[in-house]
């Protein structure tokens, strides 16, 4: 699972939808993998405005990456190739191949195996 996807998901349990603690989900025991991808600046420029920056900072810290700037790059900063390349590396080239995503509210653990996260819930949590 790539870091970009982690920024879009929250706990699937209904009661957690309203809780601010359920987002972002926290990586535990994450095995990281870097995989080189073609740099697509147009995509990064489009997607950054849709990213929850605080959540991305949390995720990036938890995965042990150097801390991101406090505020989201906007306007001219999105023309800065270095900024775009750094984000490309974090969002698209960084993958969690094994580990868990844990909800900060209910504590439910979503397993990640071979890079695939499983968000299915047992019946008592649906």
């Amino acid at each position, binding site marked *: 699972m790539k870091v970009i996807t982690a920024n879009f998901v929250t706990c699937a349990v209904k009661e957690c939808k309203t809780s601010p603690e359920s987002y972002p989900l926290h990586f535990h025991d994450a095995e990281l993998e870097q995989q080189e*991808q073609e740099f697509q600046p147009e995509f990064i420029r489009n997607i950054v405005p*849709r990213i929850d920056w605080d959540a991305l900072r949390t995720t990036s810290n938890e995965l042990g990456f150097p801390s991101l700037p406090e505020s989201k790059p906007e306007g001219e900063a999105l023309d800065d190739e270095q900024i775009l390349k750094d984000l490309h590396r974090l969002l698209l080239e960084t993958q969690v191949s094994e580990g868990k995503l844990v909800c900060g509210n209910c504590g439910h653990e979503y397993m990640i195996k071979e*890079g*695939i*996260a499983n*968000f299915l819930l047992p*019946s*008592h*949590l*649906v």
Partner: protein
Amino acid sequence: MDYLVRFAQTHETFRLPEIHACATLAGVDIEILSYYEFSPYCVVRAPNEEAMRTIAKRSILIRDVFELWGQGTNYEELHADVPQRSQHRWKDFEHSEFAFRLEYFGGKCNSSSTSKREILTSFTYTGFKGPVNLKNAEQQFFVMEEYIDDVEQSVLKVAPVEKPRKIFLGRKICDSCRDTVLKYDLKKRDYISTTSMDAELSLVTANMALAGPGKLFFDPFVGTGSFIVCASHFGALSMGADIDGRSFRGKEAAKLGVYENYKQYEMPSKFVDCFTSDLTNTPLRRPQFLDGIVCDPPYGIREGLRVLGNRHGKPAVNVIIDGVPAHLRPGYVPPKKPYGFEALQKDILNFAVRSLVTNGRLAMWMPTTNDEAVEFPVPMHEDLEVVSVSVQSFNNWSRRLITYRRLPEGEKSDVTLGRTKTDDQGHRADDLNLFRRTFMNRGHVLKAEKDNETTP
């Protein structure tokens, strides 16, 4: 200037929606001047040749595009029309290498080779002086005769015609990207399943949702990834989810089936992620982050229409086995229950409203039994505009591709004509899903009738 578009004579109800989608992608205003479902020829008004090229380069259902130099219902009319439309262009090609060709649609060429030559040489008044090159001339002029083909004859019960009912003269501009269909042919794809959507309609679906570079696409019922592969072919980065992880993972260990297809088509960088989830209980809750959603939801015939939860009557409790909650033990498979077809449509529309950016599109397939086909109410949502509805018909059922646009905040669409059906009450798949019930029952009836025929 007016242009002659030659469509593939297939998937007729998809052709105009697709050309409009390609025009939207190109940022071009076009006007359809003439169109007929039984004919491949369509006259389009566009600002310039470049605009038509851009449109054609994205279209799957267009075959090729011509600058329209003349049209008529017989040769007299055609020859009267040609100077009016194209005289101002004759000088531009005076010294070009050129060729004239004669092509037919829907009829036999009754003309002998002498009359064929007569036709082709009857345009000498254009005054071309350049060399003739029949193989690959720089400027190719097509005389196209349209007859009434056998499909129209049988559908409309009309007689064939001896002479063409319409004749066009056009200067060829370009081919479309229709040959992409061959590249994505399922027969040549590494990872597919029995329910994979064919390449042609998958590509059209991606076009309807306006897939393109820099965009993020998602398929909540990804399966083997036919739609996202096509969206990515046009440049979008794509994600997929499925309630059954085996569908996108495949059987080979340590290989992700859908990703293998991305590698086969040499675009691994367009693949974002696949994960196991249920749309009804989706973890994707961010607002406005997707440019497009493409999907063919399960119908409950070949693939089960299910969501998470226990079947009716089973209490939902946290089962503990050997001191560990069952759902945390390895190999746990969450229970799934049958779900209503209409409820699922509603979930999809609500998900689209929340997740799509303004003007983002949802292109969704939906099945219908033919009894329902006459009056077909489309599922609607006031925050979505229905852009187009196209039909693919089979023997006893059909499916529709419905394309929606996410409206800007504050704009509402009129949903009074929308689908107001609700699922029937019940807990079994057959109770909940009218489409499944009708489809299956008819199968049984037909079978019963057949059996009756054979047993005297």
